[in-house]
């Protein structure tokens, strides 16, 4: 497996397998996991279903609840909104209410340090790029460690 025999075909196969895995994963996430979108596709069938939304941004706050936004949609959540502010990152577990087409909050966590974590993520990425640039070289078609 790790020899130079048929190196390019082996590398191509590995990359193809990885791409296939990622595509499959995305398809599963969209068609088999039960999120708000799935509940809204058939509200009666999913009434009472528990939905977990991790790391969504508070878009707006209303007296009876709030709206949170994710990568592809906005979700209304019914629950205590005192102290919440737009722009905050929160995770919510809620029960889908078909009549109100909203989630009824059961539990939530506010991620106050999310922005700091994102900044550390960027710093870590840049640091690693510099570190890798120092320690790795491309020589004669191979990746080698700096002597």
């Amino acid at each position, binding site marked *: *497996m*790790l*020899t*130079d025999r048929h*190196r390019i075909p*082996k*590398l191509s196969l*590995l*990359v193809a*397998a*990885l791409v296939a*895995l*990622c*595509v*499959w*994963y*995305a*398809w*599963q*996430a*969209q068609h*088999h996991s039960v999120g708000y979108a799935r509940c809204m596709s058939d509200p009666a069938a999913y009434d009472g279903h528990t939905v*977990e*939304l*991790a790391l969504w941004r508070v878009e707006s706050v209303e007296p009876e609840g709030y709206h949170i*936004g994710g*990568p*592809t949609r906005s979700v209304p959540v019914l629950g205590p909104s005192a102290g919440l502010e737009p722009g905050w990152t929160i*995770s*919510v*577990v809620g029960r889908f209410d078909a009549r109100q087409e909203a989630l009824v909050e059961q*539990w939530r*966590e506010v*991620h*106050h*340090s*999310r922005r*700091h*974590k*994102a900044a*550390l*993520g*960027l*710093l*870590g*990425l840049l*640091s*690693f790029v510099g*570190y*890798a640039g120092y*320690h*790795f070289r491309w020589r004669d078609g*191979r*990746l*080698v*460690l700096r002597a």
Partner: protein
Amino acid sequence: MPDAVTHLCSGLLAHIPWVPAAARRWAPVFVAGAVLPDILSRAPSTALSVVHSHWVPLPSLLLYCWGPLHLPSGILLYSLALTMLFPAVQRRTALVALLAGATLHVLLDLTQRHVGLGYPLLVPFSSRDFEWGLVGSEASVPWAPWFALVTLAVWGWLRWKKQPSTPGTPPEGEKDAHRPEAEG
């Protein structure tokens, strides 16, 4: 999961007690293994989500496809692929170093608590998720700067220790460091 700085520092420090000084030249590969799960999965996912939210609508496939690069099945595949870029005689060592670093990354991530959503470690064979839930998902943030300072101090000390005390003598731990590339 811990932040990227914590993963980077953990990679830089974790191998030191276990790896002899002469083999420490492979540390960058171990560090790469410890950081790549986040760089290859979280970074593009986050960047594309920002693009989708603020500028250009993107296909859902592009937003949700990055997960396996943070899970054992994807880690194994890309580690094997990266290994194929090394000289043939070094691939076994490179693969071991990459996977060891990735194992450290996953173990650190499993300590965290996410809202009912752990890591589906057995994808594509099972969607069951796991996590130990010991600390919050931002628990590492206050400690990261101190961890970085400790890491810099340790590596600074290791570098200073490697300097020869008298001219002409090889640095400590370097006597057999210059082994030919014919190592497995």
